[in-house]
Structures are given as C-alpha cells and as structure tokens.
C-alpha cells in the first residue's frame, strides 16, 4: 500500500471493532427461537389414536442411504402410510455425517423434523438432551410397551438422565431399528491355505496372526485414513484386557473408571506393537477404509476386524468363503465386543406431531418391521437369532450378535464418551499405530479428555 491506505486500514479495523462491540450487545441464540431450555417438560397428552389426528405430514430425516437399509425403510414407510391414510411421510435421507451436522443447527429452530436419527453419543444425543431439544419418549414407551419389546442392554444406549449427565439410564430418547456388532471377518479358504483354524481364544488369535505374518500374508486389514476405523480394532482388543464394566463407563463417559489402569496400558501397547511390527501392513493410516475391504474381498489379508455392516457388500463378491466371528472371549471368559444399535430414531422436543412420530417409531420397530429389515438384508436389533438366514456370513453375524447381546456384553463405541472423544480417540490411535506417540502418551490424552468431561 502506498501512503493513504494505511490510515484506511486502520479506519477499517476501527469500524469492525465498533460493529463487533455493538453486536456483542446481543447474545448468540437471540436469532434462534428456542433459547429457553425445554427440558423437564413432560409429555402429558399421550395419544396412540393416530386416525383421530386428521391430515398430518410427518417429516422424517434419516441416514439410511445404503441399499438394504433404504429398501427396508421405504417398505416400512409405505406400510405406515397404508395403515394411517391421514399421514403423509416427507422423508429426507442423507449421509450420516451430513445429517448429524445438520441436526446440530436445525434442532435450535422451529422448523424441526418430527422424526430424526440422532447418534447415541454424548456429543450428539447427550448434548441435545441437556439442551432440552429431544422429547422424552418414556410415556410412549409405557403406552406401546417398548420396555417389554427391547432388552435393557439395548434401551440403555438410548437412555439419558433429563439433564444429560448420566448416560445409560433415565429417560428414553429414541429407538433403534438395527443391531451392530464389531467382530472379525475372515476368508475360509485363506485360513485353509495357511493351515489355520478360526481362533477360539485370544492366544489362538495371536498365534494365527503370527503364522500369517510369517507366511508373508497381511495378518489384519485396516484402512484407517479416516481415523475412526481403528476404534473398531481397538475396542475388541481392549475387552481382552479391561473388565467390561470399566469399558462401559469409559465409553459412555460416566465417572468411575480410568484410561490409565494396567489393562488399558496392556491393550494399547499390544495395539501399538501390531502397528509397529506390520500386522496391519506398511501403512494402515494411509489406506482408505473402503479400498481396504475391497482388497480383502480379492484376497489381500487374512483377518478383517470390522463391523457387520460390511457383510452384505463383501458377501456379494466372496460368497460362502466369507466368514464372520465375534472376537474370542475376553477377561472372565465372557464375550464382549464393540457394538450395539444402529442410529436411533428420536423426536425433537419442538416437533409438530410428537404423537404421530412416536407411532411411527413404534411401527418401524415391531416384530413385523424386524422381519422386513431382515428380508432386505439388514440386521434387526430384535429377534436376531430367529431371523437369521440359514447360511452364509449373515448367519455368522446374526449368531454372533445374539450371543454377545444375550450372553456377553455389547460395549459402547468409544467415541460415545465425550463430545470430543471421536477426535481424541481417532487421532490417538493413529499416533499409536505409527509410533508418533507412545501408548502412555496416547492414554494420557484419552484420560485427560475423559476426566475433563466427567469432572
């Protein structure tokens, strides 16, 4: 700038400062209608008589964009509209990540959907509950008998105390349709080739991994460029070293556990060793998640620790050769692994049609609904063992899910713990994998995040 603009710049800075100060006079949120927390407001007029409500447009935001899930929900929506001709469903579906970001902004306003899929995590559902933005569905749970329909282990993942501080018990803020379980995929022919059996204990698993490494195979497939996939490898491993109750407390962000105890250190050290010694190949952090499992279908790697949701797509390529198992029993001989529910369907506190929304959520989680989900290739959260296909990897998956949910423990996703834990854990596990930080440093970061949140 020559001479004069300097003063202009200064003037501009001054102008901005003045306008900024003027604007600070009004608090954020003043443009948004729901400044007053609405929590504690209980629903009083519970109605299940939907026909009597006249013409209703039910606005549903979901993230069931994948083929099988989308087909199931479309079928259910059509059936719901048939049952209640006065209801029209206005459905918007989008990728989960986009949806979760959208909800954060949209729930603050008046123009909210009637039904929305909200991630169970504290960073999502927990914060909305604390801000009074989700309707407590407990009255409807009584009216429709949801507590009989769902086991407590499932409902626990959608329960928060009214102020959002306790996760796992309290009011009910949604219902899931599908189940999820993280386990280990493998190729039967590959195991046969290496002369291995599917491992039944962690020792056998470690031995199989060593044998694979020696044979020049990639022991475990992991595409971790997006940071979250490593959580699904670490979760089951952690269950072999840490009591399930502690993992539940850590994962749900409830006080009373510590990331720094022996078990966690052992788990993290094992994980770092796997990274350093090439059990995930040369560069798990530089590999795409989808590229990784696509490679697995064409013969790369021996084991693929991952969630059941990959089953259908991989089966399409690998057929009967693809198998799935829950991780071997951990401490105390109990099976415990990361898993739980699909993203639950919730109702915003400001929704126009809470009664219809509750009826809808009821409708899409009935036994018949579970059958429709299973027919379309999803894994229903209820009656899983009964609805299991007769053979193939889906049979493995359904069996594993019902075993773990009935006899073992479905551990929460670790990123449920705090609003920032997805980043803390994702970054930390990447750093442990490539040795940027020691296991102790990583665990310290976990503990800091957890302790700061649980206070």
């Amino acid at each position, binding site marked *: 700038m020559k001479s004069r*603009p300097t003063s202009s710049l200064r003037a501009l800075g001054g102008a901005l400062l003045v306008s900024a100060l003027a604007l600070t006079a009004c608090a954020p949120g003043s443009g*948004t*209608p729901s400044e007053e927390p609405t929590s504690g407001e209980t629903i009083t007029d519970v109605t299940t008589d939907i026909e009597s409500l006249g013409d209703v447009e039910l606005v549903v935001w979901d993230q069931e964009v994948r083929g099988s899930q989308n087909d199931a929900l479309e079928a259910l929506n059509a059936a719901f509209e048939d049952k209640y001709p006065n209801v029209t469903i206005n459905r918007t579906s989008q990728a989960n990540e986009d949806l979760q970001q959208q909800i954060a*902004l*949209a729930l603050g306003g008046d123009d909210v959907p009637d039904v929305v899929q909200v991630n169970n995590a504290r960073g999502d559902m927990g914060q909305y509950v604390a801000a009074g933005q989700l309707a407590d569905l407990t009255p409807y749970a009584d009216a429709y008998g949801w507590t009989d329909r769902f086991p407590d282990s499932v409902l626990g993942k959608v329960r928060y105390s009214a102020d959002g501080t306790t996760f796992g018990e309290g009011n009910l803020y949604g219902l899931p349709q599908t189940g999820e379980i993280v386990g280990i995929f493998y190729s039967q022919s590959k195991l046969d080739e290496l002369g291995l059996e599917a491992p039944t204990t962690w020792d056998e698993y470690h031995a199989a991994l060593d044998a694979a490494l020696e044979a020049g195979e990639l022991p475990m497939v992991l595409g971790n460029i997006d940071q979250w996939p490593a959580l699904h490898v670490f979760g089951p491993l952690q269950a072999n070293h840490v009591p399930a109750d502690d993992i539940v407390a850590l994962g749900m962000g409830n006080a009373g556990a510590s990331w720094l105890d022996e078990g966690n250190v052992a788990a993290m050290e094992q994980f770092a060793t796997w990274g350093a010694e090439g059990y995930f190949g040369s560069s798990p952090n530089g590999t795409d998640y*989808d590229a990784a499992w696509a490679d697995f279908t064409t013969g790369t790697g021996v084991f693929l620790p991952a969630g059941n949701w990959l089953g259908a797509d991989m089966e399409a390529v690998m057929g009967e050769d693809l198998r799935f198992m829950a991780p071997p029993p951990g401490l105390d001989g109990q099976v415990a692994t990361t898993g739980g529910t699909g993203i639950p369907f919730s109702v915003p506190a400001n929704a126009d049609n809470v009664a219809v929304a509750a009826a809808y959520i009821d409708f899409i989680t009935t036994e018949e609904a579970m059958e429709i989900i299973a027919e379309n290739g999803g894994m229903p959260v209820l009656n899983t063992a009964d609805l299991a296909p007769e053979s193939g990897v889906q049979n493995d998956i359904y069996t594993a899910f019902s075993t773990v949910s009935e006899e073992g423990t479905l551990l929460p996703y670790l990123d449920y713990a705090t609003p920032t834990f997805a980043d803390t854990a994702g970054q930390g596990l990447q750093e442990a994998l490539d040795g940027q930080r020691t296991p102790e440093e990583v665990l310290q970061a976990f503990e800091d995040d957890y302790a700061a949140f649980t206070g």
Partner: protein
Amino acid sequence: MRVSSTERMLNYVVLTLFALFAVAPVATIFVTALGPQLGIATGGLHWGNFAEAWAQGDFGRALGRSLAVAALVVTSALALSVLAGYAFGTMRFPGSTLLFYLFLLGLMIPAEAIVIPLFFDFQAIGLTDTIWGVALPQIAQSTAFGAFWMRAQFRALPENLLEAAAIDGSTSWSALWRICVPPLLPSIVTVAVLMFMWTWNEFLIPLVMSPYKTWATAPLALNVFQGQYTADTALMASAGVIIAAPIVVAFVFGQRYFINGMLEGATRG
C-alpha cells in the same frame, strides 16, 4: 526473436512434463471410472459405469439445481460487481478507499466463519431450502471478488473516454452501458466464468443452507452417492467425472476465449 534449438527443446521438455503432471490426476480418475466394478473380473472399458452412476445417483436433478444456482449467482453477482466496479473505477468520492478495502476483506473471510450465523438468520426468516438461501451467501462472496476485479477493469479504461461521453451529454448510467461495458466484455466474461466455477464447486454453503436437500447441488449429490456406493471406486470415479464434466467441457470449448479474456483482464490496473 531467435531462440536456440537447445533452448527450444528444453522448453518443450519443461512444458510437457508439467502438463503431464497437471493432467495425470484427471486421467487417473477417468481411467478408474472405466475400470471394472468390485467383483467383476472382466477387463476392457466399462462405459456402462457412467450410465449406472447417473441412474443411481440422481445426478440429473442435482446438475439441474447446480445450473440454476450458478445462473442466479453469476448473473446477480455480475450485475452488482459491474455497478460497484464502475463506481470504484471511474469515480472519486469520500470513503472510496475504505469501502474498497471493506470489499477486499470479503476475499479473506472463510465461509466456515459465516455459515453458522447465516443459517440461524435464514432459518428464522424462512430462506433455508430455497434457492435464495443457497445463492445469496455465494452472491456476496462472488461480489467481493467481482468488485475487486471490475474496479481494475474500469480504471484501465482511457481517461478521456468518460469526458468524451460527457461532452455527448451522456448520463453516468448510459455512459456505463454504451461506452464502458462494450470494451470490457472479454474480462466480464472471464470473471463470470470464474464465478461459475466457484459456485459450481461450492460444498459447504449448499450443505448447510438446504437441510431438506431441496437445493442439494452436484458436489453434495456426489457425497450422498459416496455414502451409498462408497465401496466401488469405479462407480465413485464415474460419478466424479459426471460432476466435473460440465465444467471441464465448458472450459475446453471456451478456454481460448476465457484465457485470452483473463490475460487481457489481468494486465489492466
């Protein structure tokens, strides 16, 4: 000017190497798009991937929306920029420098910094999920650049042009359209193309401003598509080519005009 043959060879080598570097990633995605889908072992070129991606991704409607948004943004921002540039470039008035720097600031504000308050305001007045909700913030962004660009263009006009117009008895309005705009058309076209490109490729603003996805533009459709068929790199790449194609085709056919306009425009000031 005489250039030695060694130097000429060297020139070709440098240019060709760099052109290869520039084109290689584009070629990569095109080649991937023509590759086999997962689980299909056959070789050859799979042109069917494009048809399949097109049908599954609902890209027809997304491209239509992108076109509508881009048309609205470009025409509005262009009109505002020409008027503002005219004032900045040909007139003297108190506060002109300050106002100009105010516009310049707009080039530096990251979109992430303003989408949140904008969303709350738009929601309050019912602009979300309308074409205006998606377009207005982008009109403002493009105008910031457009005013900056058009100012330089108007300043580069010969000084006596306006005086001659004054002697003819022109008003400032008619002088703008009759005298000033015609010689500036090439650079106006260039800035229009730039605005079009930016709008077409914008991701965050349509993502946030259209919660019901009624105005989800092409890059967003690609994101949804990725959620649906993420596994298949061949289909993903095909979808990517579909999204990029309109711009690339427009660029290839218009590049001579566009780049010349840019070369001409950039020398003013």
